[in-house]
Structure formats: structure tokens, C-alpha cells
């Protein structure tokens, strides 16, 4: 950078940038925002919207910041009256045929056009002519709806489909004022990344049916998280509505968006992850239950944990733990897997440790992985063997069984599951979702969903990514890490050690000390 450094001045701010940088990027480095609609960092600049105009000293005309590379000694002004006037003009043309849809437009609140109008526009429309009428509800994909009136023809969508997915389902058709975005001969957009078009479109021209009309963007609290649906570990935003006080069931997650992380997922996420979130919120278990003589009794955490500890403690004391079996899963966070290993493998010395994970699907060669669980790598790094559940081994000579997660139900057919589980006296289920396993066990402990807990996940490439809770735990549920710690305390094994581990961060630090991988 130093060698080929180019010294330029943007709005009296001197910056030094590499050769070949565009003015827009240079301004970004200098901490200035130049408005842009068609430019997107992932694509080659196109220069169609012309809102990024800036003034360069010595040049008679305004230039496009997104497409002009800097030259040494350039003096650029991004806010001069001429520039502002030009942007106003550009906006007025963009708006000339733009509908007044903001009240029903799902982009409103995060729409670039609205933002720039607030900043540079604020004009009374000078066009007295009626606005052009265009098709407003065009289904361009299974979940995508195009509104041609709102489209500003920035072609971001077209470029995404030709440069990133290379499927090229959309194009600009016809000329001049009649130009429009369209699919080829009604062949819909069909790829696993179509949802990104919604994020990408700077206005509300492309909306998805999952989010369409459900709520307004400004109600949503946006939190950073990690997608748990495959081992890629894509970075996401989770948009959560805290709910209306008097209306039950209004607190919920409304959408998932891609979060930029060039190391993992670039700027995109797949549709499998984006539209997979309803399954995370559906069928949640929220009550602590003890099926005492066939009747469901609602319990408190303190009571049920001490009850469980009573069952495990004598076996631990007599070092007779061979008839305890546990089933884990790799949806558990690093911290939880670590605690799991500590308690069941190291402290109790169990031999029968199994893993029940969702069945693998197929990858798509880009982001989506075949492995549909977010944390298998961590289990391997910890030295846990991912033994699949073998029902015979599981039930033979087993007195106490603890199952973490709901996935076991999908892996075996119900009748053999019931047959084998019936042989075991005490069965405990720690699960965030209802799966059918409830009917076979005696203790049901609700666990928090992955978006309700704080912790870290290790993706397939070994990258440890921290995330924090998006929403409060559902009902009485608690994250597994806290259940595990409380259980360890009740068992009175290594009390000093576990009572120190109060937060996921502390646990992660402790892991770093013990396992080099997590350092």
C-alpha cells in the first residue's frame, strides 16, 4: 500500500489508498458515505443510477464515484452544492415514476431511496403527469415477488444472478422508459440463493412471501447470530419482534438476513438457512414435566435437577456407572459439548456416549453443506467420538438414559424406539423441541433454542464463532449449559470447578486452557 500509495483529498480529508481503488471505496476508507444504489461491493460497478456523482477539482463534469478510479493528487468533494443539486436531480428522475407505496412497501424503513430522499431530496415533485402504471405483483420465484413500479433498474439482481449464482434467470428487457426486469420466458428464478435478492435490492421491488406484509422493519430488533442449519456457520442477522404486551404470541422472529463475513459466507446465505427459521420456533417444549405414574406433573428446575442427581449420585459414588447412557447432539454449542464431555465422560466415566444428529442432506457446492448440524467439528476437536445411536447397545444393561436434543426421533422408527427405550428404567429428555420422544421418557427438561442462548460454534473449517442470544428463552426453558452446570453442582462432583463456570464466556476461556484448539 505504501509503495503504490495514492494521496488524495476527499472533502478536505487526506487519504492514502491503493492504486485502482474507486472514489467510493476510498471515501469509505476515509469514513465518508457516498450515496449509491446500483453499486454493490460484490459486483463490477455498472454506473446506472448516477446518484454517486462527485465533483473532482479540475474536471468540468461531475463523475461517478462508483466507477472512477482515483489518481494521485485528486481533490474530490462529495458535498459541494453542485453535487447535492445533481443528486437531487437524479432522485427526482428516479422518483418520477416511482409509486407512493411506502405505507405498504416492506422495504420502508431500510429503503435506500427513502434515506437519500431525506438527505438530498426533500423536493416537491415537479412532475404533474400521471405515473406510469406497471405490473405490481409478479411472481418471479417460488418465494419472490417483483414490483416493477418500485424497481429503479439498478440491475443488482441481474448481476447477482449472473456473477454469483451464474444462473442468469433475470434480465433487463426492452428499452428506454419501457425497460423492465423480467425472467426469461416465465422460467422462474430457481436456485438456493434467490432470497439474497431481497436483501440486495436497494428498494422494495423484490420482496419475499415469507416476510411480505408481516410486519414493518422498524419494529424489528436486529441481532447478529450464526446460522445453525449446516456446518458452514454462515453469519446472519436475526430480526426479532419483541411483541405486543397484550397480544400473546406476537414476540417472534420475522426474518433472517445475510451478514457479511468474507471468511465464511461472503455477503450471502442460502435459502435453506434463510427460510429455515420457522422450524426453530415451532413445536417448542416449554414446561418441565415429570411423568409420575403416567400423570404429567409440572416441576421446577431445582426439584427436577435434585431428583435426577439423586438417581445418578449413588452410581457415581460406587463408581458403578456402566448402566448410564447418554445421547448428545452437535447442535449443542462448544461450551455445552465441553461441559457434556467433562461431566459424563471425564467425571462420571461413562462408556455409552452416543450422538444423534439430523440426517445429512446434500450440499450445493457453494455455501450449503451436506452436514446439517453446526458444531460437529467441535465435538471431534474435543475428542468425542460421534458414535451414532445403536439401539441395542443403548438399551442393553442400561438403567438411566439421558437424551439431549430431539433428533433421535427422526433416526429410528417409533416402534423399535419404544421397544428399546421401554427396557430402560429412568429416561430423561433435555430437548428444545417436541419430537415424539416425550411419550417414551419420564423426565422432560425444556432446553432453550439455539437462538435463545449465548455461546460459540465451530464451523467445518474450524472457525470458532461467538454469538449471543437473540430472544428470551421460551417458557421455562434453560440453555443446556446451565442445565449441565446445575446438574454437576447437584451431583457434587468437582464443585469448586463448576461453580466458577457461570457464563459461556468463562466456559470458553476454560476450554482454551484445556484444549489447545479453542485457545
Amino acid at each position, binding site marked *: 500500500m505504501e509503495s503504490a500509495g495514492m494521496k488524495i483529498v476527499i472533502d478536505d480529508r487526506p487519504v492514502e489508498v491503493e492504486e485502482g481503488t474507486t472514489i467510493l471505496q476510498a471515501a469509505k476508507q476515509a469514513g465518508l458515505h457516498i450515496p449509491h444504489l446500483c453499486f454493490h461491493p460484490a459486483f463490477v460497478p455498472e454506473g446506472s443510477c448516477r446518484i454517486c456523482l462527485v465533483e473532482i477539482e479540475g474536471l468540468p463534469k461531475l463523475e461517478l464515484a462508483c466507477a472512477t478510479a482515483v489518481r494521485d493528487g485528486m481533490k474530490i468533494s462529495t458535498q459541494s452544492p453542485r453535487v447535492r443539486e445533481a443528486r437531487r436531480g437524479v432522485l427526482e428522475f428516479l422518483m418520477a415514476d416511482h409509486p407512493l407505496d*411506502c*405505507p*405498504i412497501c416492506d422495504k420502508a424503513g431500510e429503503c435506500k431511496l427513502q434515506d437519500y430522499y431525506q438527505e438530498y431530496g426533500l423536493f416537491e415533485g415537479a412532475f404533474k403527469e400521471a405515473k406510469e402504471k406497471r*405490473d*405490481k*405483483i409478479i411472481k418471479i420465484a417460488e418465494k419472490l415477488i417483483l414490483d416493477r413500479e418500485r424497481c429503479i433498474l439498478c440491475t443488482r439482481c441481474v448481476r447477482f444472478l449472473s456473477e454469483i449464482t451464474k444462473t442468469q434467470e433475470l434480465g433487463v428487457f426492452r428499452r428506454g422508459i419501457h425497460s423492465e426486469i423480467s425472467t426469461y420466458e416465465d422460467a422462474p428464478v430457481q436456485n438456493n440463493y434467490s432470497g439474497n435478492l431481497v436483501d440486495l435490492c436497494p428498494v422494495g421491488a423484490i420482496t419475499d412471501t415469507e416476510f*411480505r*406484509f*408481516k*410486519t*414493518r422493519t*422498524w*419494529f424489528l430488533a436486529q441481532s447478529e447470530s450464526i446460522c445453525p442449519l449446516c456446518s458452514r456457520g454462515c453469519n446472519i442477522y436475526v430480526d426479532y419482534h419483541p411483541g*405486543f*404486551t*397484550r*397480544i400473546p404470541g*406476537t414476540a417472534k422472529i420475522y426474518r433472517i438476513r445475510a451478514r457479511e463475513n468474507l471468511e465464511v459466507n461472503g455477503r450471502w446465505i442460502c435459502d435453506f438457512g434463510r427460510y429455515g427459521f420457522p422450524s426453530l420456533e415451532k413445536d417448542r417444549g416449554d414446561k418441565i414435566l415429570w411423568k409420575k405414574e403416567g400423570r404429567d406433573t409440572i416441576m421446577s428446575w431445582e426439584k427436577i435437577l435434585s431428583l435426577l442427581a439423586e438417581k445418578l449420585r449413588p452410581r457415581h459414588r460406587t463408581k458403578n456407572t456402566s448402566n448410564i447412557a447418554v445421547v448428545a447432539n452437535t447442535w449443542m454449542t462448544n461450551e455445552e459439548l465441553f461441559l457434556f464431555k467433562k461431566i459424563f465422560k471425564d467425571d462420571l466415566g461413562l462408556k455409552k456416549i452416543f450422538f444423534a444428529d439430523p440426517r445429512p442432506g446434500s450440499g450445493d457446492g457453494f455455501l450449503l453443506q451436506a452436514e446439517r448440524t453446526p458444531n460437529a467439528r467441535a465435538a471431534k476437536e474435543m475428542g468425542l467420538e460421534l458414535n451414532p445411536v445403536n439401539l441395542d447397545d443403548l438399551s442393553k444393561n442400561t438403567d438411566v438414559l439421558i437424551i439431549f436434543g430431539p433428533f433421535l426421533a427422526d433416526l429410528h422408527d417409533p416402534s423399535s424406539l419404544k421397544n428399546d427405550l421401554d427396557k430402560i428404567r429412568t429416561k430423561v429428555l433435555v430437548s428444545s423441541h417436541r419430537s415424539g420422544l416425550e411419550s417414551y421418557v419420564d423426565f422432560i427438561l425444556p432446553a432453550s433454542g439455539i437462538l435463545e442462548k449465548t455461546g460459540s460454534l465451530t464451523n467445518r473449517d474450524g472457525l470458532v464463532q461467538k454469538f449471543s442470544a437473540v430472544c428470551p428463552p421460551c417458557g421455562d426453558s434453560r440453555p443446556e449449559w446451565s442445565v449441565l452446570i446445575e446438574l454437576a453442582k447437584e451431583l457434587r462432583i468437582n464443585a469448586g470447578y463448576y461453580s466458577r463456570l457461570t457464563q459461556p464466556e468463562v466456559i470458553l476461556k476454560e476450554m482454551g486452557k484445556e484444549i489447545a484448539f479453542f485457545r
Partner: protein
Amino acid sequence: MIRSLGYFWELIKGSLITARHFVVNMWFHTLKLFGIKTKRRGAVTIQYPEQKKALASRHRSLQRLLKRQDLKPRCVSCMLCVTVCPSECIYVEAAEDPDPDIQKYPSTFIIDLSRCCFCGFCVEACPEDAIRMDTGKIDLAQSTRQDLIYDLDKLLK
């Protein structure tokens, strides 16, 4: 001492004022009792449920939702009223209308009057002039909370 006497005088003056009010008002009350009509009345009270004052034209009373010509609600469920409402008493759920000119209409529209503070912000915020507070209805008390929850049907009436 002199000061206290001054206070004393003021005390007497004060009670003379109340006594004057008493005597004057009593006079008019008595005249009325004997059926003599006077321009002035003994009391300024309005006997509310029997006597009613005309509401000012900008008075904010019970909300109503306006209708389009085809009797569909004018509301496009933009939720701006939900956003602006300081008491968080409006709840709107949107649904898709097949008509591309309408697109969005409220499938649920609830105003919880037990929370409403009658600020009128919802009316100000509405971009469609779909909600107004001009029904003139002010006797809104109910004996159950449920009756204070106004839904789409009640609001469109």
C-alpha cells in the same frame, strides 16, 4: 404582633369571600326553588348524563375506521398508527388483497381502549386518512376489559 394582626385581617377577608359566594349562590338557588327564572345560576354544574355539552369539532372521541367506496376498509395496514401510538394499544395484522391497487388490507385491527390515552396520534400518523376520532362517542366505560377491545367490526361500524 402587628404582622399577626395583619394576617388576622386577611383571614377574615378570606372567609368573607367564601361567605359571599355562599350567600349569593344560596340566593339564586332559593329563587330557583321558588320557580323564579334568573339569568345567573347558583352553580356552574352541568348535570351530565341528562344535560350534555356540545363537543368541540376537534374533540377526540372513539376511533373509527373509514371505508372505501366498496365498503372495504380504507386502512392499508401500514402500521404507522401502531408505531406512533404511545400507549401501544393498536395491533394490526395485514393480509394480501388480490387487487394490485390495494395489495394490503388489515385482517385484524384491534384498539385496546383500556390503554388508549386519546392522544389522537394515530389519526395524525395515518397516511390514508383511514382512522378518525370523530364519532362523538365518549361514554365508553364497560364492565369487562374484553368489551374495551375494539376489533375491525366494531371500528368499521
